[in-house]
């Protein structure tokens, strides 16, 4: 479940709702078949055929539904790894080109969250920490509030690796914020000195 954008996500609940609707729809059709009483010769003639066709269609749909759900869960399993690869790719690109990143970490996370991302690997946080430490990216790229919110949503049985990675990242961002304040002070003092 998402914590940050509940209104836009496609996740387990939506897939379950979809399958429940199919089953409910199928039951309704079966019920309606039992109570049809008509004297129209055309309907009477084609009703069994329509019923066979609907049954056939729903059986196929049921199989597809299972495959879709199965594929979706498989996709969800690889999402954290995919997210990690995307973040790593972005960081490598920035390191090579020295260009600023157009999307923030939170925005990229939100995009992945729409398709079901729930977990971020500790390795992803570690890669960001490393890039911050080596001044490849700015600390403004990753939102401290997002990290703290994400940490709060983690289950109590989450591995210590994840918690440590988030804690380290928060520490390094706070360190950068203190350095930024220090740099700002330096710039102000230098400007005052040079303007006198």
């Amino acid at each position: 479940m998402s914590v940050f954008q509940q209104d836009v996500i496609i996740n387990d609940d939506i897939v379950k709702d979809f399958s429940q609707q199919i089953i409910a729809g199928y039951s309704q059709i079966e019920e309606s078949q039992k109570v049809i009483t008509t004297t129209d010769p055309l309907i009477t003639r084609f009703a069994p055929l329509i019923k066979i066709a609907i049954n056939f269609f729903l059986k196929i749909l049921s199989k597809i539904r299972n495959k879709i759900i199965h594929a979706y869960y498989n996709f969800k399993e690889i999402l954290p790894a995919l997210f990690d690869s995307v973040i790593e790719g972005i960081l490598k690109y920035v390191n090579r080109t020295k260009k600023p990143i157009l999307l923030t970490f939170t925005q990229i996370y939100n995009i992945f969250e729409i398709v079901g991302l729930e977990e971020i690997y500790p390795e992803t946080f570690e890669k960001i920490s490393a890039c911050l430490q080596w001044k490849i990216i700015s600390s403004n790229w990753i939102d401290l509030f997002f990290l703290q919110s994400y940490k709060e949503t983690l289950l109590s049985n989450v591995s210590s690796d994840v918690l440590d990675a988030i804690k380290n990242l928060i520490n390094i961002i706070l360190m950068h914020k203190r350095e930024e304040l220090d740099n700002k002070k330096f710039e102000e003092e230098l400007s005052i000195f040079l303007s006198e």
Partner: protein
Amino acid sequence: MIYLKDIPKSLEQGDICWNLPKISPAQINFSLIKGFWIKNIKQAESGIPREPITLEIQPSLSCGVILTQSCDIRSGSVILFAELREKEEDPFSPKLKGRLNQITKILHTDTRFHYFPIDNSIEILKVQKVLDFMTLFLIPYDFLKDDIKNFFIARLISDAQKVLCEKISRFFTRLAFDDIMFLTNEEIKKYIKIHNLDIGEVRETLSKFNRDF
């Protein structure tokens, strides 16, 4: 130019280095440990055993200039660096005359800053840099000595090295006094404005000299 780029066998005062792991107070959240620290001091006074306090610090990537005298740079010693900084926006005047005045002012009269000119053949010196004597940090010489090529950027020519030595000396021997004790009340008003001072603190300082403000 004033820079020599050949990688030396050993380091000297004035050498410009990069990729340095700076550990400074700016990286430490002292407000977090202060409570525990004071508590432990009080505990010790009351005879209660002190608790261990640990700090996790991630060194910050930095560029600095060696302030330690060359004769003190040897195995087992610790090297004092000051950070070479740049202002995000060019702090120097776009007008040539104003610019010259500012550079001269830093070189001749200022005790906190020192000026490093541009050298387009050196990556980190493609913009003007200012050495800030208020950003001091230490690194063991043994950390650097076997990998000088990974840290060394440039060495100052002899004359520029002498100027830096004078600036270092001036920074550590500058007079420690409150400027405002020499000023009239009218001059103090302007001084407060320029230095963005807290009036309460100024009054407190002046009260030491039995002066009202």
